[in-house]
């Protein structure tokens, strides 16, 4: 970063904002261990509620945003975060695609609220949970539920070098094969989402012998129609296949459509 927007102690400034989310992506920062200390030497972490410092309205060079826009207050706050930030980077499924809570976008959420809460009128909930990019310009999106710390480090390092960060969306299978994992779909008939899911996690689930559940969202160029047919071939019912897509990244356009297509919903 050649010039900083708002240096503090001579260092570029970073904020980590929380919106509707579980805090898991902030924890990915905390779980960095030693690199977090190095990061704190390179940048000034001015706002990081999970770790301590709180300065929500501070102007910063890099704002990481966790969580989706799910309330009126968040709707207003994300616009202020954008104004106050030179680079805005979304972290995780919630901020990038709406997250698990975006399941309500596909149903009548008012009904659900009334069914759960005695006095739903006290709630400040929007009818939808939406990704940050639907509200403000986003400079970089890091997928994952949660993200992994390496993505964050790579992004910050690139920005400090003055280089545009590169995010790879190749199919997960490539990393899985590089790791030497045995394909759980081919050997065990597991409904692994790897072929239509973007990489970034290091093929964590298949490494443990489990099927990928697409927490990094759609791969570049995913063929969801053929993939759904393949899952049918493994014995999954259309609703089960639809549920595989309607999970953590249900609101990612490619997945929403794939889920509709497989149960015969078509383009609505």
């Amino acid at each position: 970063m050649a010039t900083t927007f708002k240096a503090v102690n001579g260092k570029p400034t970073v904020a980590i904002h929380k919106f509707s989310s579980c805090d898991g992506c902030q924890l990915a920062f905390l779980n960095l261990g030693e690199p977090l200390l190095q990061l704190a030497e390179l940048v000034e972490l001015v706002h990081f509620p999970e770790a301590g410092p709180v300065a929500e309205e501070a102007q910063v060079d890099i704002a990481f945003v966790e969580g989706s826009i799910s309330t009126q207050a968040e709707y207003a706050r994300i616009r202020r975060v954008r104004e106050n930030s030179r680079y805005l980077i979304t972290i995780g499924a919630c901020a990038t695609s709406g997250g698990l809570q975006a399941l309500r976008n596909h149903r009548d959420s008012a009904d659900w609220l009334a069914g759960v809460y005695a006095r739903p009128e006290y709630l400040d909930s929007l009818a939808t949970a939406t990704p940050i990019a639907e509200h403000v310009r986003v400079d970089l999106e890091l997928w994952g539920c949660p993200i992994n710390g390496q993505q964050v480090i790579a992004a910050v390092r690139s920005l400090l070098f003055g280089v545009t960060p590169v995010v790879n969306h190749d199919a997960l299978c490539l990393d899985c094969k590089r790791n030497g994992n045995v394909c759980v779909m081919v050997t065990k008939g597991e409904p692994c989402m790897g072929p239509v899911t973007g990489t970034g996690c290091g093929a964590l689930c298949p490494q443990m012998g489990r099927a990928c559940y697409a927490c990094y969202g759609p791969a570049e160029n995913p063929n969801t129609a053929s993939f759904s047919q393949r899952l049918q071939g493994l014995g999954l019912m259309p609703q089960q296949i639809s549920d595989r897509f309607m999970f953590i990244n249900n609101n990612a356009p490619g997945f929403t459509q794939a889920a509709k297509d497989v149960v015969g919903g078509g383009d609505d």
Partner: protein
Amino acid sequence: MSVSKPRYFARRDFQRLIDVLLDCGYQCLGPQEKDGAIQYLPLDQVASLPQGYRDVQSPARYQLQTTDSPRYFSWANGPQALKPLVFAPRESLWHSKRDADGRLQFVETIPEPTPLAVIGVRSCDLAGLTIQDRVFLHGDKHDPYYAARRENLLLVAVNCSHPAETCFCTATGNGPVAEAGTGFDLLLTELNDGYLLQAGSTRGEQVAAQLPLTDANDQMHYEAGQQRLAAEQTMSRQLPALNIKKSLLQHQEHPQWEAIAERCLSCGNCTMVCPTCFCHAEQEQPQLDGEASVHERVWDSCFTVGHSYIHGMVFRQETKHRYRQWLTHKFSTWHGQFDSSGCVGCGRCISWCPAGIDVTEELAVICKEQPDA
């Protein structure tokens, strides 16, 4: 050197082969069952070999079964064999760091591997290795990273007695048995009670000299011959009889490319398991403090967007163009580059394709002789 006359090596003595290799300073890798597949893993005990295992393979399917057979090698290939041992899936090519004056210093990171003996190598893998040697070692591009690992490799091949339903090495002309000059140091033909053992190199002879070998009799030779015949007859997949190399180039606009793209997931699995695919990407892994960096090479695939990205443009956006690139390169333009086809008939791209796309079927459609043409 020519291949030595077959001699008999009893199965009960197999541990001796492992011990000799270990004593000669090799790390031993051998086939073992792990996570539902035959994989090449560190081996020091004969009991770790997949005795009695059989594989059932078909498009998008690979499963292991156990039998009472005393054989160690009655299976066809699993997902990988030699490729990751010589062409590493991920490796550092060089490190860079700033010196005291702030100038960048570059340090090559040529690997210094321990000698590696691989037991159980099949003829398709030998053929694949020969092709990779051409890619990485011959001509004007000598790759020192590949070379360092390649020089350290001792190969104990085993003739294939149980090809899978997906295998077609008879069609590519490099199996099921390994011929002289295909690069093995030792060659085993597994029989019911033991092995016919041949040496194909001086190193192989030195190992063989330390094994309890006896003369092979006519019955053993007959059994080996019958086994070869049966293995050859098992393989039903064919390649088009006409000139695939020419035909593919003539059919670049064939409607079948579109039909394949409807099924193809563009996931790259076929290229990852292919023993000859050599495409790679290079990337920088800087240290967080920005003072040092590792320059990495990783397996890439013609099915990724990065593969055809050139200066602001992606040339193969669509799956049909990516698949066409793969198949055309493998079976046609490879000839111009490396004087051979890029396919060795191992069938991995068929078994490990999650969509079950079968190259032999697609080639048959695309290269079909047109009656009016």
